């Protein structure tokens, strides 16, 4: 589903590479944690998959596409196959919960009929039935993140990228979000989650990929956050 072949990314000529000869393969349906401290290359890793950046060296394959050769006008089609969730939720503050989720379908040209059928279903999946008409500021952080997940997943993409989805949430709320992501993973969706949250990683016992200084230092099935942590 996602494959990086000897990928190097250098932002500025002569600078230390943000990613240094990284090779990883993530299969369809995998649940993978991407861990590492700030500046370890996690964000670059995700940006390469979303093709917000192009690799300096090596090849990136996502959902059957060779991203090095993907022309700019096809990038939107790639992005429709990748749902993305962020630490800061990125909801539209002037739209209701329902409208926020519907927006993701509207702007890729789905019919009104399709939207009306899909959005309530998705809100039910993330546990927000009955809160369709709330505005984002009326929701708790955990609920806001659920809206963001509903928006990312409403088009049923085969890949879900999560960049520190629990970074702004308290531990109890985070557990709920992780359960939701696990449920989504069980529908066959590949989930790649970048995180700092060691407790979550340790609890979930999923595959862990660790980056340090741009290099892949660990790729472990059923791993924990980090052996050397204090």
């Amino acid at each position: 589903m996602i494959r990086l072949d000897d990928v190097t990314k250098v932002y500025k000529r002569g600078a230390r590479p943000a990613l240094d000869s990284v090779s990883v393969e993530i299969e369809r349906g995998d649940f993978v944690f991407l861990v590492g401290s700030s500046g370890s290359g996690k964000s670059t890793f995700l940006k390469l998959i979303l093709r917000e950046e192009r690799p300096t060296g090596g090849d990136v394959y996502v959902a059957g596409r060779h991203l090095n050769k993907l022309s700019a006008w096809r990038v939107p089609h790639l992005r429709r196959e990748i749902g993305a969730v962020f630490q800061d939720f990125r909801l539209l503050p002037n739209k209701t919960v329902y409208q926020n989720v519907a927006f993701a379908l509207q702007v890729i040209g789905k019919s009104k009929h399709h939207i009306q059928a899909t959005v309530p279903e998705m809100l039910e999946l993330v546990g927000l039935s009955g809160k369709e008409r709330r505005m984002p500021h009326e929701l708790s952080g955990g609920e806001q993140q659920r809206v963001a997940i509903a928006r990312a997943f409403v088009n049923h993409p085969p890949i879900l990228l999560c960049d520190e989805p629990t970074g702004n949430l308290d531990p109890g709320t985070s557990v709920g979000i992780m359960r939701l992501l696990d449920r989504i993973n069980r529908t066959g969706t590949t989930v790649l989650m970048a995180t700092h949250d060691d407790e979550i990683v340790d609890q979930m016992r999923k595959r862990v990929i660790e980056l340090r200084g741009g290099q892949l230092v660990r790729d472990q099935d059923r791993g924990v956050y980090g052996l050397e942590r204090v």
Partner: protein
Amino acid sequence: MRLRFILGEVVNGLRRNGTMALSVVLVTFVSLMFVGAAALTQMQIDQLKDDWYGKVEISIFLCPENSTNEQCAEGAATPEQEAAIRAVLEEGALSDLVDTVYYESREEAYDKFVANDSEGIWSSLTPDQMQPSFRVKLADPEQFEVVADATEGLPGVDVVRDQREIFSELFRFLNAATVVAAALAGVMLIAAMLLITTTIRLSALSRRRETQIMRMVGSSRSLIQMPFMLEGAVAATGGALLAVGGLYFGVTYLVEDWLKGSVTWVRYIGTADVWTVAPWLLVVAVGLAAVASVVTLGRYTRA
């Protein structure tokens, strides 16, 4: 769905950036008004040329007796010289340019003169004091110079006059007015373009959240950019429509109601000509917005 979405975004954007949009409308209005005025002035000039040049003729005055002109040192033009001049006009290389040649004798010139002199101021003149001339009508009035050059040096020719000279000053004035209007239009158009650019940029910045999400979920670039482009285009088109309206009222009140009533011997442009100019003003407005969009949007809504 898509169309409704785009239109909704356009309306929202225009409302949110109301004052900016209004300024775009006004600036394009004024600039296109100048463009239109320049175009209409040129149309008026063309019309005047059509009307008047067809009527004007070249007068080749022949040497009278006792002329102080060097060329006429040998005295009055002889019949042979007159025949030679006529031959140059009617048979030589010039014959293509010349429509008709009419010989006006001293007596005819005198009769005409007297007929125009109702108050008898010139009653002491005699036919002998008049100058015979060839009155030449040209097939193409623009070719005046060629005919004048070819006949001016001929023996027996005193001076060559073109009635166009009477109008040329007026046309020069009108052309200068066109240049001034066009220059102002140019400056205003640049201002309009910069304003549209700024408006689009502001609009894009104020909707950065939306466009960011749209990129993230895989909206096509055209859907992301279309609302901004249309916003600029709608505002610019609004300006163009106002300009057309302005020109229409200008022509109606200034030309049709006023000039036509007071200076009647000229055929003027009318509101029909405004409709000829109108589509071009719209094209300029939309083109302006398009250029501004292309310049701006690449940077602010990249995929």
